[in-house]
């Protein structure tokens, strides 16, 4: 079975960039130095990813998964801090005003600012799923969020080879029947625009129950991501995994620094392949990698890179 290797979510900034962002906040360096530091860190990350099948820019200049969108969604503003699920990281709530609109005059430079082409592999864009945005949003329904996200995604799709949506909320918080309808339509429309390009929906921080699993595999996406730090593979056995759908297996624990043994990862992925027989497997992180310091994350990536291309 074909094994794809990929990172996912916010990747940690390097120690040097961290220092520069701090210095910038304190007025010790100017914007040129800040931009240079981002560029250097991004180039290092591109180099690190050499050999991975799917690559991206690590979202290094994103303050969190929502903040960039405030710049192009008119009437949306930033508010107070809220804990990001069960982590020690905090996001800022975004507050929607009336009649949120995409600022189309700014969309091209915005895409250039936040999505950078890697040197190799398939280029994927990593985006927050509508349900994730809703958790940190005030004043907007899931439908409103899905609509504006769809409109925004429209401008990203032509640039990239794949889109990942990160969605802890779907399994962690759960969704209503109405939400399911909105999400079903949303992913179908994104997939329609993507055509043969890959669409991955990554879930994190909780184990999906049977109902959520059935919903997930019924969506028009190419692969479902499961966080195997929290998901017991036994729950998947109740389900006949559709053979036309891949699994993004979050087997690198991005919340702990222990470096995975390549053999243990291979054995686990092999078990998934044999028991579930998905179309393909993407081996990836259990959630965003920025819960780790950069040095730890980079070591885990070396293990990821060492895995075979097929099992």
């Amino acid at each position, binding site marked *: 079975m074909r094994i794809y290797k990929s990172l996912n979510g916010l990747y*940690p*900034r390097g*120690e040097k960039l*961290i220092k520069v*962002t*701090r210095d*910038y*906040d304190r007025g010790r360096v100017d914007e040129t130095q800040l931009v240079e530091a981002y560029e250097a860190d991004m180039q290092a990350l591109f180099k690190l990813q050499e050999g991975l099948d799917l690559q991206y820019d690590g979202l290094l200049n994103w*303050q*969190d998964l929502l903040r960039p969108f405030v710049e192009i969604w008119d009437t949306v503003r930033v508010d*107070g*801090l*809220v*804990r990001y699920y*069960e*982590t*020690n*990281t*905090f*996001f*800022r709530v975004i507050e929607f005003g009336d009649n949120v609109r995409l600022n189309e005059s700014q969309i091209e430079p915005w895409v250039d600012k936040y999505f950078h082409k890697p040197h190799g592999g398939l280029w994927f864009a990593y985006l927050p799923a509508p349900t994730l945005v809703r958790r940190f949003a005030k004043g907007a329904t899931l439908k409103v969020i899905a609509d504006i996200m769809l409109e925004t995604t429209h401008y990203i799709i032509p640039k990239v080879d794949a889109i990942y949506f990160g969605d802890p909320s779907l399994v962690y918080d759960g969704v209503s029947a109405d939400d399911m309808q909105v999400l079903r339509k949303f992913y179908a429309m994104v997939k329609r625009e993507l055509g043969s390009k890959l669409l991955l929906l990554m879930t994190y921080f909780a184990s999906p129950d049977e109902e959520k699993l059935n919903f997930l595999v019924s969506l028009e996406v190419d692969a479902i991501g499961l966080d*195997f*730090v929290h*998901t*017991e*593979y*036994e729950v998947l056995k109740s389900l006949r995994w559709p053979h036309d759908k891949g699994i993004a297996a979050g*087997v690198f*624990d991005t919340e*702990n*620094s*222990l470096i995975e043994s390549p053999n*243990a990862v291979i054995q*686990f992925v092999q078990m998934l392949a044999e028991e579930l027989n998905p179309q393909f497997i993407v081996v990836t992180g*259990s959630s965003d990698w*920025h*819960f*780790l*310091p*950069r*040095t*730890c994350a980079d070591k885990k990536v070396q293990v990821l890179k060492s895995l075979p291309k097929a099992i």
Partner: protein
Amino acid sequence: MKPLVTHEIGSLAKPNWRVKLLTGRPLTDTDIEDAKYWATQLGLKSEGDELLSILHKRKEISDQDKQRVIHISSLFATKLLERAGLDLLFDGEQHRIEMYEHVIRNVEGFKFYGHVRSFDNKYYRRAACVYRPSLKRYYHLDEFNTVKGFTSKPIKVPVTGAYTVVDWSFDEYYMKNVAIGTRTAHEARHVARVRFLKDVAERIVKPNLKSLIDAGAKYIQLDEPAATTKRDEVGNFIDTVIWTIGELKHTDVFWSIHICFSNYSMLFPHIEKLQGIVHELHFEYANRDTKQLGRHPDVRIGYDVINQLKGYNFVVGIGTIDVHTDYVEPPELVRDRILYVVDIIGDPYRVFVAPDCGLRTRSWRVAYQKLRNMVEGRNLAARELGLTV
């Protein structure tokens, strides 16, 4: 105990003159002026002169100079809080680098790996537990004894709680050889987690508490911002507090727990087990409240969890000022927040007044003005309730 006791939660910013001197960076005239300003404001002429003489050296700073600057920043911070009118004092944690790192540096068995983002461009250094933790030295004793010498007012010592130390650390010791992805593996992870929590509670935090009590501490606050981080572990958090305090509950210490930026409803009904052990529960509220004056639930939306606390016998510590903004809350807003809570709890002696959290992200000038207004707001509330504070 008087009604509506006021206190800070812990940290104040480290002044630029202190940070730069300790890290060997050049001081600016503004930094020197800031040192002068606070020496004058706080009426600390001789210490101010000593500080300025060290700062003016600008190079060839000795270790002794550095220790004196830490000592003076601790004095200044304590006096700042005293001058703001707070009832319980500390020194803005001027002896500590940061609430987590301070602990780890004084404990064997951990290794720092680098920075992890907290929010925006704010980071904290995160360590991994690599072997069984043990205490190197009592890490609060010196600062407690120092602050005792600065004031005759009661001192409240903030101590990072064991659950938070564990939750903010990676685990390479207890979790070693624990796999992922299967039911058996998840059970093993749970067992490893409990062992880690119990060890940090009993081998690290508790001995420090005992040393503080032996030195005369009467108010101890366990800082547990991570308490409700994991919904399946709230019970573990409660157990960890019980392991930490243990038989020390029989001392005459007033025990407080501070939690912030969390989903407090997750604590119920677990906190019932802390009755008779912990006296005060302090949470952050102002961050989630409106800035409008008034005492109606529609306006005081940040304080809805108070209704859940009503049925317990804890003192309710309330965050009345937001620590993440320079907006200085008017005393009338603080007053209304207090009166709203007192109305629900029904007893002003069971309400303590504080900021949401430590004010370390604010400048001293902003922090001071916020705290002054907080105390003034408390005074307005007391007046309205016909109380003397």
